[in-house]
């Protein structure tokens, strides 16, 4: 049905030339799912866009063959391209949170392809939209059509995007990272939805960096790296018996398959929180939101306490409470058995260095004008450090020295996160609060960062409060786990016990949603 031969895409020219895709070939038949996997920047999205003729203004697309149902796409003019888009190929774009026009209602967004391609008579469009939303599992579709994307959850938005992509019943659907940044529970629902589509005879091109995700769905897997396909084959084979070294590395990086770390030797409690409550006012007359609602925790030296929970369950708020960035409405935090929240800001200032935070979005935590070197130097000064230098810190987190002169904005996500870790370590903290430290990174990079954190803990006896919505990640690093729901702790305990034999239904639902990888025959 879809035949791609020797597709290459370059951007710009001369010095600025980027070869994003370098001659890839694919075929896809109706009712089948081909997954394209690869790390960030490997050219997956560019491929997807090139298939729609949307590679971009400065792109040069070349292809030996680009055929859809026998039509030669390379020969299409702008007008004919428009007839392909949405009607013959539906695209579920990357970044669900921003891929819908925030100012238009969901109904109009879904209706747009119907209208443009005159797929159904205008009078029936409304009904068809509701039908589509119902099919894709958007709850209360008749209400949703009148709402705007901002009023929908991430998973709902993703489903709306799918509804819009399949509105004209295209024979081919391209889904670009349809589940990144979604909670595990929602992710599972989306995958089921795509599976249903495939069963109904649609060809699905699934793009992801997460092998665990594609394992659920793909009939075939193509592994991309640097714009090339390095391995291609039936899903079962690629996942269980990867041939290419890179594929193997990708598989290794999938978190959560190792067991939880061994419990550390018993150590004193460094951080202790009791009955923390934080409320936020809500607009109008609504009762204030209890973002954190009576949370207590203990953190021992050298230990990692994982905090899991869905988006909005209060994880970040808890982090800010612990690091005394906001004051709790009730409850207390003690550091090393002494008061922490009850200190005045002045008294606390001297001890601030004992708790450091690594943020979900490291870039915004750096002053945009400062270079890595300046950032680290300031941090060393703040910690009153004499002996260590910026170079030592870079070595500590495994960054090349040459990067010191760059500004963080010019670093990759993984590098940024390492700088953030280096900065936190510069002041020799006792506790590091990691707020989603790897959720913005792709799997292989995330795995490196996690390894780094674990290593540093062993070496320096750090205590981590490790926040993540990704159960696999939490499982890999945490000694104990705390499950948060709506600001309350619903379950807590040793990682193995909680995650292998959850007692609370919420925990169970979280776990069930985690995609399972088939066991691999190690072929090293």
């Amino acid at each position: 049905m879809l035949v791609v031969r020797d597709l290459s895409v370059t951007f710009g020219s001369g010095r600025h030339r980027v070869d994003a895709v370098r001659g890839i070939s694919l075929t896809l038949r109706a009712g089948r799912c081909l997954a394209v996997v690869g790390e960030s920047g490997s050219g997956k999205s560019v491929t997807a866009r090139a298939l729609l003729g949307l590679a971009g203004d400065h792109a040069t697309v070349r292809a030996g063959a680009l055929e859809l149902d026998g039509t030669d796409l390379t020969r299409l003019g702008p007008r004919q391209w428009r007839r392909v888009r949405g009607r013959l190929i539906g695209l579920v774009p990357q970044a669900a949170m921003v891929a819908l026009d925030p100012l238009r209602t969901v109904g109009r967004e879904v209706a747009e392809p119907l209208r443009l391609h005159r797929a159904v008579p205008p009078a029936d469009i409304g009904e068809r939209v509701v039908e589509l939303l119902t099919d894709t599992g958007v709850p209360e579709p008749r209400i949703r059509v009148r709402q705007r994307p901002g009023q929908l959850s991430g998973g709902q938005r993703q489903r709306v995007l799918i509804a819009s992509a399949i509105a004209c019943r295209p024979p081919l659907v391209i889904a670009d990272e349809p589940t990144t940044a979604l909670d595990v529970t929602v992710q599972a629902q989306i995958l089921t939805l795509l599976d249903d589509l495939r069963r109904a005879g649609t060809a699905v091109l699934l793009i992801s960096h997460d092998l665990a995700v594609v394992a659920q769905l793909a009939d075939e897997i193509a592994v991309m790296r640097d714009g090339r396909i390095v391995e291609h084959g039936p899903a079962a084979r690629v996942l269980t018996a990867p041939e290419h070294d890179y594929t193997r590395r990708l598989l290794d990086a999938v978190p959560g398959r190792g067991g939880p770390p061994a419990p550390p030797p018993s150590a004193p409690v460094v951080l202790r929180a009791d009955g923390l409550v934080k409320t936020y006012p809500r607009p109008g007359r609504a009762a204030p939101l209890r973002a954190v609602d009576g949370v207590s925790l203990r953190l021992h030296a050298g230990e990692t306490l994982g905090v899991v929970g869905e988006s909005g369950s209060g994880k970040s708020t808890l982090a800010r409470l612990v690091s005394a960035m906001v004051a709790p409405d009730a409850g207390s935090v003690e550091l090393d058995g002494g008061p922490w929240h009850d200190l005045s800001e002045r008294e606390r200032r001297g001890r601030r260095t004992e708790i450091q935070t690594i943020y979900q979005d490291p870039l915004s935590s750096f002053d945009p004008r400062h270079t890595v070197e300046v950032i680290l130097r300031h941090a060393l000064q703040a910690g009153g450090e004499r002996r260590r230098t910026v170079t030592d810190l870079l070595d500590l987190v495994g960054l090349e020295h040459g990067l010191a002169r760059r500004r963080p904005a010019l670093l990759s996500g993984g590098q940024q996160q390492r700088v953030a870790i280096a900065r936190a370590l510069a002041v020799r903290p006792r506790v590091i609060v990691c707020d989603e430290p790897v959720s913005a990174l792709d799997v292989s990079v995330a795995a490196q960062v996690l390894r780094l954190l674990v290593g540093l803990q062993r070496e320096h006896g750090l205590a981590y409060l490790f926040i993540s919505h990704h159960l696999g990640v939490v499982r890999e690093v945490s000694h104990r786990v705390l499950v948060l729901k709506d600001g309350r702790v619903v379950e807590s305990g040793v990682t193995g016990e909680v995650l292998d034999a959850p007692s609370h239904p919420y925990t169970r639902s979280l776990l069930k949603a985690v995609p399972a990888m088939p066991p691999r025959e190690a072929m090293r």
Partner: protein
Amino acid sequence: MRLVWSRCGHALLVLWGALTLTFLALHLTRGSVVDAIVGNNTQVTPAVRAQIVQDYGLGRPLWQQYLSYLGRLLHGDLGTSYQLQTPVRAAIAEQLPPTLQLMGLATLLAVTTTLVVAVATARRPAWLRAPFALLEVAGVAVPQFWLAILLLTVFSFGLHWFPAFADGPAGLVLPAVALAVPMAGILTQLLRDGLERALEQPFATTARARGQRERGVLVRHALRHALPPALTIFGLLLGSMIGGAVVVEQVFSRPGIGSLLLTAVTGKDIPVVLGVVAVTATGYVAINLIVDLLYPLLDPRLKD
């Protein structure tokens, strides 16, 4: 409802502040009010001077004059012009329509130009875009009065295209253009930038992927995103348009609030100045209120 009340209170506060500030500043200027009224008519008799002082209550202490002004204002009485010897309200009522017409047409021109040019040139090749971009910056840079004189000389006296001093709509064109140019310059830059930003957003790609044509993406999606910031500036520009109106009215010898204001300030015609400030400050507050109310219409997220 509470919001409306607090808005009104806020507006009154601003109005009061503006009037008080102006009142004080006017009285701070050197030279007595009587002298200003008499002007260079050096042969005025003492009886006439006394009559002026009495009629306008100029003999009272400043704070009494201030309080009585406020008191009368509460009853909608703006006082009597010293120079024109007519009620300020009547003078303003007479001068406001031509200024409003002028500003109205200028606004219309500016908004139309902005929409047309911004939409036509957003994300277009440089050869199409660059000349407009230059014109826009130049439109902001050019001194308004000079532009007005240029327009007058070329299009009225030279080419005879537009009468410059006719009361009818044809006479309104050139002054309105002079007034509209800087506004259009700023707004076009803003709007186009907003459009280009929006066109690079993921949702624009989504729309293209559905088969939407570029024009459709622009008009149906990008425009609504680009309008709100332009609207804010538009409100502010409207508020400060009165300054431009003074200059333009001067060049085109047009009646209007601007000319009224100018002669009143230099002639220390305090009631007129205060009256005009009251009107323009109210206008400013009202415009900002309207902009605030329009905002949620353009960006419904603000309603939630």
